[in-house]
C-alpha cells in the first residue's frame, strides 16, 4: 500500500508524435524523485498522466493504487504546474482560502502565507503578483490541503535567489515529515539537493534511474587535479588506465577519471612528480550532459 505512483508500460502518442514510449516506473511513499531530461523528453506528459490530466494511449497509470482522475486521490496531493495564472478579482488570501475549501483537512491560512513568504502581500490581488511571487502563491496552493505527495513542475522558475532558498528549506521540511515529492526541474542543483532518486528521460523513455550519488559517480566521474613537477610525462599520464581526459593550465593539471581511487594509488606508488593533490566529485550537471548526449547518439 506504500506505492504512490505506478506506471506500467505506458505510452502516449499525440497524432504522429510519440511523447512517451513504454515507460514503467514506480514510486514509494517517503521518497523524492527528480525527473530530468531535455525539453520534449516527455516529462510533462508523464506528470500529466500521473495526475489524470492526460489519458495514456496504452498501458496503466495508478495514483495511490487507483484511478489518477479520482477526486479522493486528489485530496492527498498538491500540485504546482507551469503556465497557470490565477483568476482575477481575488486577493492572495482569498485565493488560498478558496483552495483550502476544496480539501477535507486544510492547513491554516496564516501558516500557508508564512510558508510561501506572502504574509505581507495577503491583501494584494493575486493576479497582480510578480512572476516569482506568483510561483510562491502556487506553492501555497499546492500545500493548502496538507498533501502527502507534492508534484512540482519547474517550481523555482522566476524566483529570485532568496525566495529559492526559502522554498528549498520548506520543501526539505516537508520531506522530513515523511512525505513524498515528484519534481521536474532544469535546475540540477535543485534536483541534487531535494531528490533521493534521479530519473532521466529522453525521447519519451527513461534512460537512467538511480540515486544522485551513483548517477554522478557513474556518469559524472571524478577529477583529480595537482601541480605537476618538471619530470612529469604527460604522454604516459594520458595512457594510464581510468584516465578519460587531461587538461593543463600552466603547471596545473586536471585529470578526469572514472576511478579516482585507482588513479591516486598509481600516482603515489609510482612516485609521480606531483604536489597539492585535490579530488573533486563530478557534478550532476556533468553526468546529465553525458547521459543525454549518449542517449541522443543511440537514438
Amino acid at each position, binding site marked *: 500500500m506504500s506505492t504512490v505512483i505506478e506506471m506500467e508500460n505506458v505510452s502516449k502518442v499525440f497524432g504522429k508524435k510519440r511523447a512517451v514510449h513504454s515507460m514503467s516506473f514506480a514510486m514509494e511513499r517517503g521518497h523524492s524523485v527528480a525527473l530530468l531530461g531535455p525539453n520534449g523528453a516527455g516529462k510533462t506528459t508523464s506528470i500529466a498522466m500521473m495526475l489524470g490530466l492526460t489519458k495514456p494511449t496504452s498501458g496503466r497509470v495508478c495514483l495511490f493504487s487507483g484511478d489518477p482522475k479520482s*477526486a479522493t486521490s486528489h485530496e492527498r496531493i498538491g500540485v504546482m504546474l507551469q503556465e497557470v495564472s*490565477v483568476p482575477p*478579482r481575488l486577493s492572495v488570501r482569498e485565493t488560498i482560502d478558496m483552495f483550502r475549501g476544496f480539501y477535507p483537512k486544510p492547513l491554516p491560512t496564516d501558516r500557508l502565507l508564512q510558508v510561501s513568504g506572502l504574509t505581507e502581500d495577503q491583501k494584494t490581488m493575486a493576479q497582480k503578483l510578480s512572476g516569482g511571487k506568483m510561483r510562491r502563491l502556487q506553492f501555497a496552493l499546492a500545500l493548502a490541503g496538507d498533501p502527502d505527495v507534492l508534484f512540482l513542475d519547474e517550481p523555482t522558475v522566476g524566483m529570485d535567489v532568496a525566495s529559492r532558498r526559502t522554498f528549498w528549506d520548506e520543501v526539505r521540511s516537508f520531506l522530513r515529515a515523511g512525505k513524498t515529492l515528484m519534481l521536474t526541474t532544469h535546475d540540477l542543483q535543485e534536483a541534487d539537493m531535494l531528490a533521493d532518486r534521479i530519473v532521466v528521460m529522453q525521447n519519451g523513455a527513461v534512460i537512467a534511474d538511480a540515486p544522485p550519488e551513483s548517477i554522478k559517480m557513474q556518469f559524472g566521474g571524478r577529477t583529480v587535479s595537482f601541480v605537476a613537477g618538471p619530470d612529469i610525462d604527460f604522454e604516459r599520464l594520458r595512457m594510464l588506465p581510468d584516465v578519460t581526459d587531461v587538461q593543463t593550465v600552466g603547471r596545473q593539471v586536471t585529470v578526469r577519471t572514472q576511478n579516482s581511487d585507482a588513479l591516486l594509488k598509481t600516482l603515489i606508488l609510482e612516485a609521480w612528480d606531483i604536489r597539492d593533490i585535490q579530488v573533486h566529485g563530478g557534478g550532476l550537471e556533468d553526468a546529465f550532459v553525458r547521459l543525454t548526449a549518449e542517449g541522443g547518439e543511440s537514438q
Partner: protein
Amino acid sequence: MRATLTYWKYELIRTLRDRRFFLLTLGMPVIFYFVFINQQGGALRIAGTFWSHYFMVSMASFGVVGSSINTLGVRLAAERQSGWVRYLRTTPLSSFGYAIAKILTQLTLSLLIILCIFLVAHFSQNVSLSGGEWLTITLWLWIGSLPFAALGVFIGLTGNAAQPLGTLMYLVASMLGGLWTPIQALPSVMQTIAKWTPTYHYAHPAWRILAGQSIQASDILVLLGWTLLFLIGSVALQRRIDTKVQM
C-alpha cells in the same frame, strides 16, 4: 460537494467585484428600460398587456442572455486559456463539480438580474402583477435561461474568438429575437426570422403570462432544440481541442 460549494461562493465574490458585470450586463438593460419606456409611454397597449410590462420581460431576458454569454462564456474561455481549468483538475474539484459550480453561479446571477429589472419596473413604472404571475414569470425566466448557459459553454470553448463571438451573438440574438423592438413592429421577414431564435422563444412565454395566457409547448420545444444544438456544438469543439492539444 464541499469543493463545488466553495468554488460557487468565490465565483459570486468575483462577479460582485466585476465592474463590467454591473455596467454592461446589468446596467444596459436597466438603462434601455428607462429610455424605451419614456419614448413610447408605459401605458401603450401591446400583445394583450402594457408596454411597461412587456418591455420589463424583454429587458430581463436581455440581461440574462447577456450574463450567460459575457459572464459565463467569456470567463470560461479566459479560465481555460490561462491554464486555470487544467490546474483545478488536479484538485478535489472534479470537472463535473466545476461545471455544477458554474451553472449554480449562472443561475444565481440570472435570478439577481431578473429581480433587479422587476424591481426597477415596479418602482419606476408601477408595474404590478398578482403574486402568482410574478412567481411564474420569474420561474420561467430563471429555468428557461439554461439553454443560454449551454450557449455560454459553447462560446467558452472557442478560445480567442470567445469575446468577439460572444458580443456578436449577444447583440444579434437580442435584436433578432425581438428583445429590443417587439417583432410586431418589424417587417414580416424579420418576424419569420425571429420565430427561429432562442431569444424570442425564451421571452415569448413570459409575454404570454402577462396577457393572462399559458406557456406553449412549441416554445419549450424550440428551446430544447437549441439547447441540444449548443451541447452538440460544445462536445464537438471539446473533441477537436482534445485531439489538438499537445503537452
